[in-house]
């Protein structure tokens, strides 16, 4: 671990246009994309990454660095538009954005819960997502907000819902020649709210378990709900059936308790170095209860 020079022997490439980057991905083998490097370089140091021949730094591609509101339909944005995040936008760049803070407070909270400021000054949300850790903090609220990813290769572009992007630990929908070129968070409608809760030993730690909830409210009824959880499955988990089953129901404490028990019964977490499966299961229902209440209140709802 202590090597001051990375042991792996790779060539460094720094394309200045997206077309050039996509050509490299299409033509060369064993290419790793370098954005912030806070995961990639440490995994190369620890030797937990497969053989790398080329490290392709995408920070010289100016057009990939943005975090702003956008109304272009091609991003997969909805009627209200979307907040779009480029692949080299750093976590602090995103979290310090006023529009993101105002429209997606749970996303901001999740980003600020990651590591520490010096890591967030380099690390990117795109990198956090592409590493596909089952505990990826930034992915949890983004799933709840309905994030859409644009994947691009020389063959073209496609849009994938974030919850469909993950296949397993470190495994994603990305083909060898593709890269993530945009993250779009659809602007939420009025009367909606979200919550993010992370349980860890101390703040900069990776979560033992995390939860995101998004609720769109129609008076005292739930119009739409999306629950996602981290570190309870081999991928950041969208709790789809249970979330969708809440649509049209009256929000109250009984529903909250029932939903929390359903989620707990559906989860099959594992034990690992951060905590054990018994704790994850036991605390999951508490998180779901807290998250549903918080998101409902943030949506302007009241609870009797």
């Amino acid at each position: 671990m202590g090597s001051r020079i990375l042991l792996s022997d790779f060539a460094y490439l720094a394309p200045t246009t997206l077309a050039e980057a996509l050509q490299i991905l299409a033509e060369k083998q064993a290419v790793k994309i370098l954005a912030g490097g806070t995961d990639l370089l440490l995994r190369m140091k620890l030797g937990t990454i497969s053989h790398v021949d080329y490290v392709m730094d995408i920070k010289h591609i100016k057009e990939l660095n943005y975090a702003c509101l956008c109304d272009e339909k091609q991003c997969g944005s909805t009627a209200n538009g979307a907040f779009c995040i480029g692949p080299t936008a750093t976590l602090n760049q995103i979290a310090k954005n006023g529009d993101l803070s105002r429209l997606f407070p749970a996303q901001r909270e999740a980003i600020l819960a990651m590591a520490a400021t010096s890591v967030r000054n380099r690390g990117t949300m795109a990198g956090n997502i592409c590493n596909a850790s089952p505990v990826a903090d930034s992915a949890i609220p983004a799933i709840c907000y309905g994030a859409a990813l644009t994947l691009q290769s020389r063959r073209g572009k496609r849009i994938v819902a974030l919850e469909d992007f993950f296949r397993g630990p470190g495994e994603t929908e990305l083909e060898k020649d593709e890269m993530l070129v945009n993250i779009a968070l659809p602007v939420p409608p009025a009367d909606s709210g979200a919550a993010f809760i992370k349980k860890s030993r101390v703040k900069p730690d990776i979560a033992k378990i995390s939860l995101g909830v998004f609720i769109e409210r129609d008076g005292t009824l739930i119009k739409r709900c999306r629950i996602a959880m981290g570190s309870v499955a081999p991928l950041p988990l969208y709790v789809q059936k249970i979330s969708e089953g809440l649509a049209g129901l009256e929000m109250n404490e009984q529903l909250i308790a029932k939903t929390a028990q359903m989620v707990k019964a559906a989860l099959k977490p594992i034990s690992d170095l951060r905590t054990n499966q018994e704790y994850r299961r036991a605390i999951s229902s508490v998180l779901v209860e807290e998250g549903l209440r918080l998101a409902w209140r943030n949506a302007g709802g009241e609870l009797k």
Partner: protein
Amino acid sequence: MSKHLIHLTVNGKEHELTVASNELLLNVLRDRLYLTGSKYGCGVGDCGACSILHGDESVLSCLVLAVEADGWDITTVEGLADGDQLNPVQQAFLDNSAVQCGFCVPGMVITSTALLRENDDPSEAEIKDYLRGNYCRCTGYVAMIKSVMDAAAKMRGE
């Protein structure tokens, strides 16, 4: 492996260097520019001992390739003082006896300086949160946090 010509401005001085693709910025600062203030602690982004300033932002130099830093304006702990005049954070660390073994102190001072450039009136909670990625294994945090409060007050002219 590939070789690259890079330009760095470190503590106001310009350097032109040829670096290997797998060289880390911390390695270049310490072993080639002999700026050994930045420390090699954990090497994996946990401890903050290698913190440097890239412009006004704190960055972990153990997780940056030297070639990535081409064109950067860097301040290491050696560049914080103006001649014999310590920067307010350094002076406050001295006044509060906030140094025990000293290994974490360059990173602590750098990260605290970044905080005060961003916010000249941080609360104790904000300081703790900002410094949460800088570990002191002597656990001397109390005097350090007080030092940052004192430095902030001094910078505000109080």
